[in-house]
């Protein structure tokens, strides 16, 4: 690994002024240090944002819960504010089944981590469609977009998207902007384009999650219970009137280059009661448009079951 400069600012303003060409943000480091060791990223300077107090903490902010960018996954999963209202986020954070990684990894870092695609990690680019299509693709997308056949590695992204959360971003010009999580993730169409709506000289400062009027849950299907990325996940948020769904939000994770919204399944559930039958039909609708690669058709079934089980968990219906 080439050496780099290390900066340790204490304010967002100072951090932004340090994010000049070739500089990168260092937060938990769990992904970045791997990328540095593999020489996929070769920054000239790392700007550590963990000592900026304004980026920490979880608090009520008007109708929202504000989660600071550098809140660790452990802090998130342990927070009473979060546990009381967003089981979906707690389940997603605990899916990262390593106390060490949960102690280091941050909420914004989970959203900004780079894909795990092994062709990308070995220096063959993120959009090398022919390598993916003709090579080992069992963990790749079943909802690919053009050349983007990798999957977003974010665990919290699908849950935050289903909850209608917003990412607050500070830019070099001192301006801030709010980007809905649904627009934060992007499928790049050219090498070098980012898979998130965050420029290299910007910093995620907060995540705003709307007040909980929903029953929500995340269900992950995994190869093993211990440290690993899930194979397919579903996060759901339901607004209910009695036992009837008035609106549903369903997002699939680890199946496409961004979290994937299941709009058809959402529409289908309006006016319905959540039962094993309606949940299974929603699962089938959620994966109807899947386009699996040569080795990953199995993920279609996993995603379908993830939707069913997330819905049953959110509604408190015993799984069958």
């Amino acid at each position, binding site marked *: 690994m080439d*050496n780099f400069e*290390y900066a340790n600012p204490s304010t967002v303003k100072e951090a932004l002024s340090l994010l000049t060409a070739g500089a990168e943000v260092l937060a938990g480091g769990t992904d970045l240090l791997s990328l540095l060791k593999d020489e996929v990223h070769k920054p000239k300077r*790392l700007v550590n944002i963990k000592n900026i107090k304004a980026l920490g903490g979880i608090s009520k902010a008007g109708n929202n819960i504000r989660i600071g960018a550098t809140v660790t996954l452990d802090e998130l999963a342990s927070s009473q504010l979060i546990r009381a209202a967003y089981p979906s986020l707690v389940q997603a954070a605990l899916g990262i089944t390593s106390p060490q*990684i949960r102690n280091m990894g941050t909420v914004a870092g989970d959203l900004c981590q780079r894909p795990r695609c092994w062709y990308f990690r070995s220096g063959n680019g993120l959009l090398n469609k022919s390598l993916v299509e003709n090579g080992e693709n069992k963990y790749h997308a079943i909802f690919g977009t053009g050349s983007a056949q990798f999957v977003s590695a974010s665990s919290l992204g699908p849950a935050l998207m289903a909850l209608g959360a917003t990412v607050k971003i500070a830019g070099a010009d001192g301006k801030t902007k709010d980007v809905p999580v649904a627009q934060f993730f992007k499928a790049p169409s050219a090498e070098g384009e980012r898979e998130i709506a965050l420029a290299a000289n910007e910093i995620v400062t907060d995540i705003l999650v709307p007040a909980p009027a929903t029953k929500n849950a995340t269900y992950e299907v995994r190869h093993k219970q*211990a*440290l690993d990325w899930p194979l397919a996940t579903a996060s759901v948020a339901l607004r209910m009137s009695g036992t009837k769904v008035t609106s549903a939000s369903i997002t699939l994770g680890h199946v496409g280059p961004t979290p994937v919204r299941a709009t058809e399944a959402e529409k289908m559930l309006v006016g319905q009661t959540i039962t094993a039958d309606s949940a299974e039909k929603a699962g089938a609708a959620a994966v109807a448009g899947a386009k699996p690669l040569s080795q990953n058709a199995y993920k279609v079934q996993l995603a379908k079951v993830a939707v069913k089980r997330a819905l049953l968990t959110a509604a408190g219906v015993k799984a069958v």
Partner: protein
Amino acid sequence: MSAKVQVQTTINNEPVEFLCEPRQSLLECLRDIVGLTGTKEGCGDGNCGSCTVKLGDRIVTSCLVLGVEAAGESITTVEGLAHGSTLHPLQKAFLDHAALQCGICTPGFLIAADALLQKHPHPTEEQTRFWLSNNLCRCTGYDKIIRAVQAAAIEINGAAQ
């Protein structure tokens, strides 16, 4: 090449100063600069847990932390567990239960298990297995490690009520 950086930190309750390049991991700094070789490198990628140390009150994989990030922090490594020549109850339990063979993973397991017992004085087997799921052992098959941790819990905290 950027200049080396001076890092002031506390390791096992002793103030320590070292000089490192920003690119050097905390693991590298501990082993190659400070000379504390108890902490081991396994995968170098955060997956195996053999480099687990305590940074403040959190366990971390020191291969994914930069040495410069340790400035102002307090670090506990496996060398900080024993009191003089008296082994920590976890260390003794690992010996009594033959919870190690090659020993490379042991320092990481000890630090992680110590943090477990501080959070859960009487962990169940399931809690213990989940807590240690980021620590890999290729020799023991884990059962002996789990039994050692549970025996140490009783030794340290008494029998569960």
